């Protein structure tokens, strides 16, 4: 019978992949999601300590950042290592994967695409294994004192996969291509919009004719100094800009190939550690080692990704694939130390995400902050996490998830306090309405395709509100595309949603979700003081001070309670064959197959 749940889960998970994983996060699409998550995930911390970007001698008046280490971890195949110390070379890693919606870096906005794109392409900046922005194609970066001008010097050995060197012209052309309205990129504005001139470049002829914007042929803010030097100018000293540049929107393409070859995506000439050797839609992707890779060629000969689906656990047990996420139904037996597969089970860290129930502060009864706070105090998340969700999640204590930059434990969060909840309800302007039965009707909207079951934890939360506060809430279920439309139009009174990090900066959570003018703020939450602090944090250059600002904002948001906080994702599990070493289960999409090697 467990298999029945497996396939239903698979259906739900695959459905989730369609749209729900649109904003980033980890990249293990075949793993089963814990009940409350919107996306399928299984991740783990690298078992080798990641190498932080080492500081290069910096010019005195400038902030500088060194190049990424050639290899993360301790096994860098550098010259001083003898051959014996190098991991075994060769071999093919086989895994299940899903069809990437696109392989064009400038069009990708989803995790599945990003995983492949990160292996095949690259940009000036990438993320280290501990998610710090580090240099990739560039070997040196200097940032002007006012924080507006970023000057990159390209590595001498930075080459496209066909051997052509990457030049500053390629960088400029690539940014301009991403920002060309005809490219139809939906990510360019988010990730590149801080660069001066990108918005003008994005302006379409129609909009220019209508006077909405001024059309520009080039991106003013990207300037070629010489073949190896390129300079970016941004509109304000935003310290999160560099992290954004690690996103595929800023990746460098081969101008010649893209402009001359209509089917360039079949054999793209990228700069990443692997070449796309084969892509049969719905069947197979084969990535082959790029011998010219500027950080040293990967150990693996190739990576095979089976796209046609299949029963991951059975294939794993049958030795057809090297790794898989672990579904809930298989977990109990794998956790048993006597199970032969137990030693292959790897714990993985939680995703960078937060789940919440949004409360529309312009719709009664949520226009009263006391009602919003009362709802938070009336639910026993700790108990639900343990008893309903088997500890697969932890109660969300704030907006920023554990492990993420600016995460802090020093917040006054909500905890189960039914007396206080009732007291707050009594003090609210809806106290009489609640007593007389005139309390506004509440509908909680959740997204779900295939007639997915309503998560049990939500039912428990609703039951607690009913028991502790006497508030009845109806549930309404909507398919994802419709849900998106309505939630973006701020139509829902109460909705359940989550957010997964796009880039490792607290701005990506707090500013994007809670600034009153952000279009991803779906609750109509508006606090001028929060807005002011968020704006200050955007350009604050001192990291400590900046994170303090964000923590301040987080506390204010908690007090204002535009959400009912629910979960941070808990840790997950994955199975990895014992012969596979250094497969890091990561929380964000960065090139990772180059670390992997077979130990036997």
């Amino acid at each position: 019978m467990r298999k029945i749940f497996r396939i239903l889960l698979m259906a739900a998970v695959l459905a989730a992949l369609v749209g729900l994983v649109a904003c980033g996060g980890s990249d293990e699409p075949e793993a089963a999601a814990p009940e409350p998550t919107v996306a399928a995930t299984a991740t783990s911390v690298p078992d080798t300590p990641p190498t932080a970007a080492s500081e290069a001698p910096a010019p005195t008046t400038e902030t500088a950042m060194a190049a990424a280490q050639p290899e993360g971890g301790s096994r860098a195949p550098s010259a001083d290592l003898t051959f014996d110390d190098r991991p075994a070379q060769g071999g093919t890693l086989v895994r299940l994967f899903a069809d990437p919606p696109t392989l064009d870096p400038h069009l990708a906005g989803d995790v599945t695409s990003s995983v492949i794109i990160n292996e095949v392409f690259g940009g000036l900046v990438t993320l280290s294994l501990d998610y710090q922005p580090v240099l990739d194609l560039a070997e040196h970066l200097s940032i002007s004192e006012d924080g507006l001008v970023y000057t990159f010097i390209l590595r001498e050995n930075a080459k496209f996969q066909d051997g052509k060197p990457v030049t500053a012209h390629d960088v400029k052309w690539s940014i301009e291509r991403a920002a060309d309205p005809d490219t139809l990129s939906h990510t360019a504005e988010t990730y590149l919009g801080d660069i001066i001139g990108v918005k003008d470049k994005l302006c379409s002829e129609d909009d220019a004719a209508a006077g909405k914007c001024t059309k520009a042929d080039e991106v003013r803010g990207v300037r070629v100094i010489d073949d190896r030097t390129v300079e970016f100018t941004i509109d304000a000293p935003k310290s999160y800009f560099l992290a954004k540049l690690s996103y595929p929107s800023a990746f460098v393409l081969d101008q010649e190939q893209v402009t001359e070859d209509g089917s360039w995506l079949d054999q793209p000439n990228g700069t990443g550690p692997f070449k796309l050797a084969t892509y049969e839609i719905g069947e197979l992707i084969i990535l082959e080692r790029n011998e010219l890779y500027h950080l040293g060629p990967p150990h693996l000969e190739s990576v095979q990704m089976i796209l046609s689906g299949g029963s991951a656990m059975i294939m794993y047990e049958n030795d057809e694939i090297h790794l898989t996420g672990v579904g809930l139904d298989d977990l109990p037996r794998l956790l048993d130390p006597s199970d032969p597969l137990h030693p292959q089970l790897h714990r993985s860290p939680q995703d960078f995400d937060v789940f919440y129930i949004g409360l529309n502060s312009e719709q009664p009864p949520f226009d009263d902050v006391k009602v919003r706070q009362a709802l938070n105090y009336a639910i026993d998340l700790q108990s639900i996490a343990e008893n309903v969700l088997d500890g697969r999640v932890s109660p969300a204590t704030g907006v920023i998830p554990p492990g993420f930059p600016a995460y802090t434990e020093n917040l006054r969060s909500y905890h189960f306090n039914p007396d206080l909840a009732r007291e707050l309800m009594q003090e609210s302007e809806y106290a009489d309405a609640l007593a007389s039965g005139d309390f506004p009707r509440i509908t909680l909207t959740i997204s779900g395709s295939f007639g997915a079951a309503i998560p049990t934890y939500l039912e428990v939360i609703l039951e607690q509100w009913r028991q502790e506060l006497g508030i009845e809430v109806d549930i309404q279920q909507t398919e994802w595309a419709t849900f998106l439309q309505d939630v973006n139009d701020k139509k829902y009174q109460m909705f359940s949603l989550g957010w997964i990090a796009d880039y490792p900066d607290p701005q990506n959570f707090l500013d994007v979700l809670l600034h009153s003018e952000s279009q991803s703020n779906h609750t109509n939450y508006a606090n001028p003081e929060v807005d002011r602090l968020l704006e200050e944090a955007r350009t604050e250059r001192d990291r400590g001070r900046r994170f303090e600002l964000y923590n301040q904002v987080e506390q204010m948001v908690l007090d204002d309670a535009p959400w009912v906080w629910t979960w941070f994702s808990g840790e997950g599990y994955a199975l990895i064959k014992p012969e596979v070493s250094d497969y890091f289960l990561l929380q964000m999409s960065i090139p990772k197959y180059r670390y992997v090697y077979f130990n036997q």
Partner: protein
Amino acid sequence: MGTYAARRLIWLPFLLIIVTFVTFALLRVGPGDPVQVWLGQHQNDEVRERLRAQLGLDDPLVVQYVRYIEGVVTRLDFGESFQFRGKSVGELLAKRIPVSLQLNLAAIIITLGIGIPVGLFAALRQGTGVDNVVVAIALAFQSLPVFITAPVLLLVFALYLDILPTSGWDGFFSPKIVMPATVMGVPGIAIVVRLVRASVLDVLGQDYIRTARAKGLSETIVRWRHILRNAMIPVVTSFGFTIAGLAGGTFIVEIYFGIPGVGFFTINSLFARDYPVIMAFAIVSTTLFMLANLIVDLMYPLLDPRIRLGAGNVA
């Protein structure tokens, strides 16, 4: 017969225009929007408006429809997928539809290959215990949902016996097709068994059977030439409707056995509001449905010479 087929085919374009227009209009009138799905939670009204304009999605419905049909008719261009960006819909579907067709064909062979003989067998032993047992078993298989048969088959044949591959697709003649085709074909057997059984019983009572036997024909000839052939007409009719589902595929089976068919792909496209893919799928399945029914109609005279097509009278 040729003119009959030609006359039927003349209607195809009209049918297609109706189907495509209704599909087109419903997709755009319904909630959700492909650009919004791209943007996901990164809502940005300006970006959305700009992309919608670039894609021509803000033009009047009729303009969009005519532009689409023009592309299909004049250039056989079904457009580019919204979900698989940069990929042409024709290319995406051309890879998947044949896979689903072959899988369904294999399933139908199993359904008919087992269903017809068993139905005949049961009818010839009508009322005996054997008859009851056969019908009961068939019904039991019909009641088993795919998500039970699929895992059970996988466990038995792939994991314990290890004689069949777990999943994947290597074409019609690969052993990989056996399990999915069986899972899909088995539930239909009961329908065929019952249909054949009822139909054979009906034929058995006809005068010409008594005549055939009376004039001393061997039982084998009576069974195959007289009974089965006449009993096949209702089976063929129902078969026509089965074919209609051919291109649709069965998405659970496709997911479970890792078959790159069209079923799951199309359902996904619907959720992603991938208009061009859904439109192309509507066109293809309408055409297939129409052709399948035409073929079924053309088969009647082969089974029963008394039936003449297009003559206006069926004896």
